[in-house]
């Protein structure tokens, strides 16, 4: 069933896009990662222009994160004060990212930058996840005793102007989460990812937030920043394809629900290993695309 995507300007098989959304949603539900870092590259492999893939993927993430935010709100698993600071940073970051995106587009380098960032990002995430899963599955031996993690990072403790974040159990400068939000916001605009895979570890190991509020607060940040990013893409690059986003959402919201049920029946380490392999495969494919002679040496852009 072919369907015409009005902004991408081409016809795609609708069922294929829904299925892609479904698979990513399934992974989201099983493992708890957003999946934007898989959706965007796979859309690009399908021939969707990178700008449209990035912008529409952010729109889709807004929809997939809402149910998580609601669930965590009910369990009081959201630190709103911390969330507000990170979101403020995220919106500033997405504004800066939007500017950067336009600049790279005018220079004709946006496609290369998106692919390159993805290769770096996916290969490092993939390797980290594979290592962790392999250790858990007793394939790799843990390397010595892990150093006891210090709760407070000295760099962050040095920052001025401390605030109290009660739910996170922290007394730190709001500058740290602001900067963290800013950097993630830039990534959201450039790559169409929610950034949870960076935000969650950073909240735990860098900021030292208490574990109960990490996921909920991160989801709230993803919800707000992807919504802001959709607005930025809609008004500057004009590459949000609402039809594409809806097709992806149809698959992913349903997939996520089933994924959550599946997850209880499978070993989490196996799941993580599985995801690590997929992530590495996508990184490899993207890397090959960069280094192989492209099918089009010449490209055209309207002025």
């Amino acid at each position: 069933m072919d369907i015409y995507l009005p902004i991408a300007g081409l016809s795609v098989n609708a069922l294929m896009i829904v299925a892609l959304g479904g698979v990513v949603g399934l992974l989201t539900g099983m493992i708890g990662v957003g999946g934007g870092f898989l959706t965007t590259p796979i859309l690009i492999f399908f021939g969707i222009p990178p700008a449209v893939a990035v912008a529409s993927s952010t729109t889709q993430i807004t929809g997939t994160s809402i149910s998580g935010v609601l669930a965590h709100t009910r369990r009081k698993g959201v630190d709103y004060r911390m969330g507000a600071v990170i979101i403020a940073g995220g919106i500033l970051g997405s504004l800066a990212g939007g500017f950067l995106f336009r600049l790279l587009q005018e220079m004709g380098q946006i496609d290369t930058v998106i692919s390159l960032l993805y290769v770096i990002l996916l290969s490092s995430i993939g390797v980290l996840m594979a290592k962790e899963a392999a250790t858990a599955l007793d394939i790799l031996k843990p390397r010595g005793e892990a150093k006891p993690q210090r709760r407070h990072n000295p760099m962050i403790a040095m920052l001025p102007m401390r605030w109290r974040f009660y739910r996170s159990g922290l007394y730190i400068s709001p500058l740290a989460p602001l900067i963290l939000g800013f950097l993630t916001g830039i990534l959201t605009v450039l790559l169409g990812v929610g950034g949870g895979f960076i935000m969650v570890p950073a909240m735990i190991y860098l900021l030292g937030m208490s574990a109960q509020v990490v996921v909920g607060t991160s989801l709230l940040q993803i919800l707000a920043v992807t919504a802001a990013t959709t607005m930025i893409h809609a008004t500057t690059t004009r590459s949000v394809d609402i039809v594409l986003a809806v097709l992806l959402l149809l698959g992913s919201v349903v997939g996520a629900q089933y994924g959550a049920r599946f997850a209880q029946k499978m070993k989490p380490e196996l799941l993580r290993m599985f995801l690590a392999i997929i992530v590495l495969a996508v990184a490899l494919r993207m890397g090959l695309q960069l280094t192989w002679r492209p099918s089009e040496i010449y490209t055209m852009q309207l002025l």
Partner: protein
Amino acid sequence: MRGLRAGLLLLVAPLALGQAQPRLVPEVSHRQVEIRYSFTGAQLLLFGAILYPRGRVPEARTDVAVVLKGPMEPIVVRERQRVAGIWMNVGRARFRSAPQFYAIASSRPLRAIIDERTAAIYELGLGNLQLSPGGGIQPEELRRFEAGLIDMMRRNLLYQENPRGVEIVEDVLYQARIDIPARVPVGTYTAETFLIQRGRVIAGAVREIRIEKLGFEGFVARAAERWSFTYGIVAVATSLLLGWAASALFRRG
């Protein structure tokens, strides 16, 4: 098809009397091509009649060339090169007016029916497109970019050359089929027909065709351009609504 041809013949026969110059009566199968949700391309039939003075077909062989040309736009063409193992855009050239679609069909290969100067004047053939390059670029580099652009457009079926695409029936009726691919740009197209004899154009006629995104798809594309802020709000709201509805449904189920 046969009935149509015969009907046209009868219809145009009286008109053909008492004229000094041959005339073309062109028509197209669609005046308007609509891009809808399942658009995967279309085929246009360009046909018509050749009216000779007093209905007499001349002895010298006449040929017909048909050109379907899309909107002219200023563009930048980029060239990828390998830099440190990675293929990236390095060079670029600007062109002030490049047709976004160009298909030419003729009854015989262009080289055999028209002299080079005439072909250049009427922009007949992919080698004769006037792209109006921007300044500051070496001629040989310019040729490379032009060739690269034309080659890329040809492979995407946005530029086409069919040297045997026009069929002439009984010297007075002609027809050509032109395929329009799915990724065709929207806008006003012109379908030009040329009657060619002894290497010269002896008659020509033009028809306009509009290619438009209509229905929901057209509305979405226009909304994204014109009311981009509202479009963004609607996109976010739709996404939130779908996500919320799904979780509500599954919680109950």
